[in-house]
């Protein structure tokens, strides 16, 4: 599905109000009796929220960057770990009455989507003084002028409109007929705190607030890109009439979220590419190429997410899945069938980004 918003040639500066504007819909999106963001045109096409100006703006910033001869960040799909359990495995579980792990997974996805709203609280330093080159007419200059806020509203909803959190809940409830939510859902999220790293900043020579902001944006961008696998999984599973009570409504709902997420990936990709194309002023009045900083973050994040974190999460899930399978008639056979459907995956040796600050690089 594509939006109807056309780029305005040459326009690179937008107000916050414009970047948060949605335009008119012929029909609103109602999910689970809740008015959600976005809506439909006369011909039934779904239109994402807050894209009336945001979509053409991102397009224009991206175009300018490439016309100036700079590259856009590209995260290869080969780095994206597969969903576990995959669609076939999840379907097998549901067909055998093992619903709890899937309900839990869908609920966790909805909550984690909602946490995306935290992006509105990112502290943004005065960027103009931290870069050598000008920032006017860039995505970077618009982060606090509507881009972060639009992202936050899309994820958790705003005022009388639901967002992706409520849309994922609706997809789950449509497909699995308002299932009982496992009592340990919040413990799964809040119980897995990572030990606080005591390593200090990676780039002590740059403004600490800028480092935190860029690291956070890089992390969110990778999560958003990897979420593509989650959307495909959600659509594949919830639109399957064999296990879904309302395959059309549930599948469509996930595809609407997928469509809404595209501007998030694109503005983050554009803004971080703009940093890569620029030079950062250090605190001791020297300079460091933005590409060194961004590539370092991306290398570290992709390395961790495609290796350790993926393995840990898989191990943790597997333990829980085996436990949940005990409700099936023949848990042993079910586990064998489940494992037979697994797809082997080895992360690529390289992330595609160069690290200059990791111990290995040193």
């Amino acid at each position: 599905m594509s939006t109807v918003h056309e780029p305005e040639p040459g326009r690179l500066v937008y107000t916050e109000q414009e970047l948060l504007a949605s335009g008119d819909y012929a029909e609103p999106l109602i999910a689970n009796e809740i008015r959600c963001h976005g809506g439909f045109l006369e011909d039934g096409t779904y239109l994402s929220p807050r894209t009336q100006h945001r979509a053409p703006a991102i397009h224009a910033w991206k175009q300018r960057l490439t016309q100036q001869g700079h590259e856009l960040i590209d995260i290869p799909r080969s780095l994206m770990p597969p969903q576990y359990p995959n669609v076939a495995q999840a379907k097998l579980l549901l067909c055998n009455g093992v619903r709890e792990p899937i309900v839990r997974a869908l609920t966790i996805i909805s909550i984690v989507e909602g946490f995306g709203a935290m992006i509105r609280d990112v502290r943004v330093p005065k960027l103009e003084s931290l870069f050598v080159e000008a920032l006017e007419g860039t995505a970077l200059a618009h982060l606090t002028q509507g881009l972060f806020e639009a992202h936050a509203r899309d994820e958790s909803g705003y005022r009388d409109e639901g967002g992706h959190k409520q849309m994922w809940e609706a997809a789950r409830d449509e497909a699995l007929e308002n299932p009982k939510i496992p009592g340990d859902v919040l413990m799964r999220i809040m119980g897995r705190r990572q030990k606080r790293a005591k390593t200090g900043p990676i780039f002590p020579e740059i403004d600490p607030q800028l480092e935190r902001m860029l690291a956070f944006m890089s992390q969110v961008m990778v999560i958003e890109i990897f979420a593509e696998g989650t959307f495909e999984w959600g659509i594949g599973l919830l639109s399957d009439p064999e296990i879904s009570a309302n395959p059309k409504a549930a599948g469509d709902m996930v595809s609407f979220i997928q469509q809404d997420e595209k501007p998030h990936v694109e503005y983050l990709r554009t803004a971080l590419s703009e940093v890569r194309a620029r030079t950062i002023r250090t605190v001791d009045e020297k300079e460091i190429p933005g590409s060194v900083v961004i590539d370092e973050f991306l290398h570290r994040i992709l390395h961790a997410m495609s290796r350790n974190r993926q393995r840990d999460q898989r191990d943790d899930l597997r333990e829980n899945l085996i436990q949940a399978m005990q409700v099936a008639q023949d848990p042993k056979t079910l586990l064998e069938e489940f494992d037979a459907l697994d797809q082997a995956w080895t992360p690529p040796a390289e992330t595609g980004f160069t690290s200059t600050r990791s111990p290995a690089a040193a």
Partner: protein
Amino acid sequence: MDAARGDRIHLDAKPSRCMNLRTRIQRTIKVGWTAAVVWSSYKLPSTARRLTGRPPRTDAELSQRHERTARRILALALDMRGVMIKMCQALATRSDVFPPEFIAHLKQCHDAVPPKPYSVIQAVVERELKKPLAAVFSEFDQAPLASASLAQVHRARLLDGREVAVKVQYPDIEDIIRNDLANMRRICRIYEFFDPQPLALLPLLTELTNHIGYELDFVREGKFAERVRALFAADEQVKIPEIYPDLGTHRVLVMELVGGIKITDKKKIEAAGLDPVDVMQDLMHIYVRMILAAGFFQADPHPGNLFVTEEGKIVVLDFGLSKELPEGFGLGLFELMFSLMTFNETAMLRAFDELGFRSKTGDTKPFLLIARRMVSRSDSGSFEGEFTEEMTSELFDAIRDDPIAQVPSDFVLVARVFSLLSGIAHTLGSRANVLAAMSGG
């Protein structure tokens, strides 16, 4: 299930005869007199104004009256101590019922009282453990580490060399409390009989009776501490003292002695090489995990109960006021707090309903108005993930201004916890970022 629901101390029983009759009468007269003065200071002027055709008191006049009344109640509590201190502390958490002037005064009611003599404490320990002190401890400090309205704590050493803290309940406290609670119950009944539109004080008194009952039961406290300790067993950032149940009774609690830097001592925290922002975020994580994810929590996070070790571990002490939440309540609370902090009024409405908030008329309009009032704060900036004291006040102001018939008492307790945490955060020059803590970050 409540860890020790079956073992609860029953404070609704009649006071025993062993309490000095003169003391009982004196306490009864003091409470009764204060109640009569408070009631008449509100009712007589308004009746007189009605009869003489004068307009009702202005907001400013009423505010002055609330101030004077709050000061009178506070003075009574500081004079009588025991349950009156507890009552003031409890009233100070109910900003959904009482005006801000009451809350501001009564929340100053601290729990520190002069300690009982060592001989009294020794007698309690020996009677409870059914052994002489020297048969259990190789050392027992005569001066307490801390003393409060219900008990005091002494440092001691077990015969095997382990250093412990011994919490000892005052010998006559149960009787004093029973007497005071019986007096207050009588006064509330009289008040409800005479006042045509009474505040619902009896349910508050029942809640207070339950809470004090929990606090007086050290076996329950020990079991809660062990549950929380098990919850954080794998978390290197948290330290909950080990309880020695074999040496404990309902009135004596023996636990591992754990010390540290007081959580609000920013200078010492920094001197230890710790970042107060990290300390605060660890503390927030402990509380959201207990309240929202586990559904049971230590409900008294005041600075006297929270410490930081030199290694940066958060120490949580005193599980006397601990609470078990009903099944599903944590998820409902999560939804309410999350929707509040992300300005989603539709989700807020659903959460109010799921948590058991009810309006007098049965419709949802008052909740929509509250939700809109809270969400309108986004016009003047974001909450930045923080559930502040101001937000709690704003929420309860909105609830008081609208006809909300039922506010779940568990919610009130949780709101108080986050409000206390927000206060600690401000002392540390940090923020109590609930949103980040909820996300596991």
